């Protein structure tokens, strides 16, 4: 089976295999809708674990976005974010404002799941810097990320 990814690459057999795993992990998802148009850059073997942050981030953002997730990437967080790692970036097929609204909605569900959610978008950046900060601040609050770590006596 072959399909075209968002980056123009052809999908491979590994994606077909991973798509077959998805119903086991989450019967509510439609795997072929996801993977026929998605280029995933991570090792699919890890997807077998139901606690994999990438899969959980995908599930949450896919629900919120109406199945518009096009990529999921995970990286270890650097200090001081390593207290809350890892950082999972989900790219959605939307402009910035819409993606950030999805991000705020998804953030509440991410709290306590053991990873930090970030969002990227494929469309235009249609928010000002101030608006961007406001959206991100709301999402951080909902995820329970402390803005700063202060000493107890402050």
């Amino acid at each position: 089976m072959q399909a075209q990814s968002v980056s123009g690459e052809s999908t491979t057999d590994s994606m077909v295999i991973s798509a077959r795993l998805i119903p086991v992990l989450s019967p509510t998802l439609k795997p072929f809708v996801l993977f026929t148009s998605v280029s995933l850059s991570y090792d699919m073997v890890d997807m077998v674990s139901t606690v994999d942050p990438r899969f959980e981030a995908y599930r949450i953002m896919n629900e919120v976005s109406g199945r518009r997730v096009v990529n999921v990437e995970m990286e270890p967080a650097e200090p001081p974010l390593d207290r809350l790692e890892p950082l999972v970036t989900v790219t959605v097929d939307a402009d910035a404002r819409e993606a950030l609204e999805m991000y705020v909605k998804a953030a509440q569900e991410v709290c306590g799941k053991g990873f930090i959610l970030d969002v990227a978008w494929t469309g235009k950046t249609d928010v000002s810097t101030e608006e961007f900060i406001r959206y991100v601040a709301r999402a951080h609050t909902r995820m329970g990320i402390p803005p700063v770590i202060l000493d107890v006596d402050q």
Partner: protein
Amino acid sequence: MSLVASGLYLDTSVVISLIASESCHRDVKKFMEEAPKPHYVSTWTLAEALGVLSKGIKSGKSAPGYQLLRKQMVRVGSYLSQSEEVFNYLTERLSEWIAINGIEVCDDLVNNAELKVGSRSVKTFWVIRNACRSWRLGLA
């Protein structure tokens, strides 16, 4: 004689402890649910919390939220001064925290003592927020 609390006023140290808590927001929410309701916070307290949190970030303390914001801002490609970034970030975080926890804000009388956020003297949380918005829009 029994003493019945009609609500809980959150002071600055409590606000800061809850917002800057490393525990999950749900744990904080549980604490808030168990404490006597309604919960009140004064504008003065919010201004003071804003000042302390701002000072903490600017003094180089470990700041997971702010560092993540800086990382994420690469996507919009434009930056503000650190003061504006910190101010916008923290005011929105305080506003969101108030909203999701159902806390009532009291417009109390403002203490004459000086509070500062960066180089700015702060009278109330809302006044400085509105003033900055007006300044950005060229209205001030």
